[in-house]
């Protein structure tokens, strides 16, 4: 910057030292501190204009770059803070004997309107995906509004609860905002998705063809392990995914995130079925998680 400054000063002097009589129509406003536009030649004006444009473009570029830093880094800092808050709140609630999935009278909320009693943004269950790392865990919050999704993966209100008949549907950010589903594309058929509630471990497995490893294989029930759909395709979170209006008998899980990374043109959807249910017992983990025995 100091280099620029010297250049500018030198240039300023040459402008000021020009004889105003060379510039017909120009008015000299005075001395060493003349405004830059006083007594400027056409070339000087052009140079000033070009420099201004250049600096504006550089500034715009820096702001865009800073926005990328914000998206990829700063939003994660905020989101991790919010995630640990909901996680701690849920653990505390469980320790006190309360379960956000259970309302007054000890009755489990049922899908379809009766879940409105769980406030959006509160933690309802923990999510573990061993394929994404032994330390991979997120607290799932109720609701898929922007505020809830900043705290963690969000449960679509109205979809089934963990372990319920129907489809337990969860949305999560792919890039930034804690990026819980950044590597969702790493999952393979048969991989476990573990959901922990106050009383129970629910172990889901990703659908698809276990023999060939083909995630897109629709199997006998017409539901693939993974599919890429348009953002308006709400059928993927139907009680029976991709089969709206059909009465569910299976217990399923569906994860949704944006696709491809960094864009929102499509959605990546993963479907799984409930393979196993284990009652929680103290601090013991199910055997699908590292060090688990249950």
């Amino acid at each position: 910057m100091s280099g620029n400054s010297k250049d500018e000063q030198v240039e300023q002097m040459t402008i000021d030292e020009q004889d105003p009589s060379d510039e017909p129509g120009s008015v000299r406003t005075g001395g060493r501190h003349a405004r830059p536009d006083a007594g400027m030649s056409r070339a000087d004006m052009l140079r000033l204009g070009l420099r201004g444009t250049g600096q504006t473009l550089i500034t715009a570029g820096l702001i865009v770059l800073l926005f990328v830093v914000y998206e990829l880094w700063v939003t994660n800092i905020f989101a991790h803070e919010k995630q640990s808050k909901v996680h701690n709140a849920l653990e505390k609630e469980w320790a006190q004997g309360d379960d956000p999935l259970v309302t007054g009278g000890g009755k489990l909320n049922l899908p379809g309107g009766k879940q409105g009693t769980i406030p959006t943004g509160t933690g309802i269950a923990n999510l573990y995906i061993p394929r994404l790392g032994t330390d991979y865990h997120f607290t799932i919050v109720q609701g898929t509004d922007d505020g809830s999704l900043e705290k963690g993966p969000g449960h679509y209100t109205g979809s089934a609860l963990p372990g319920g008949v129907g489809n337990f549907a969860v949305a999560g950010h792919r890039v930034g905002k804690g990026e819980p589903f950044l590597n969702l594309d790493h999952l393979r058929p048969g991989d476990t998705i573990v959901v922990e509630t106050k009383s129970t471990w629910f172990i889901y497995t990703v659908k698809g063809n276990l023999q060939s490893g083909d995630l897109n294989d629709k199997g006998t029930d017409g539901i693939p392990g993974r599919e890429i759909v348009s953002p308006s395709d709400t059928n993927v979170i139907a009680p029976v995914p991709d089969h709206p209006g059909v009465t569910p008998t299976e217990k399923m899980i569906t994860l949704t995130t944006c696709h491809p990374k960094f864009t929102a043109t499509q959605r990546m959807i993963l479907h799984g079925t409930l393979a196993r249910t284990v009652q929680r017992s103290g601090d013991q983990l199910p055997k699908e998680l590292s060090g688990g025995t249950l």
Partner: protein
Amino acid sequence: MYVWIWRHLPGAVTWKVLQTLLIVAAISALLLFIVFPWLEPKLPINRVTVNQ
């Protein structure tokens, strides 16, 4: 613009550099903590849910 600001900062070069860093930090903070959080939900990026 940058040259204009540099010339109008008072003091010696060291002092000017300090002030420059301060200005950069202030503008970055304004963008990161106020402007971007306001702007981001208005942009069609980072949508992860399916809806009509």
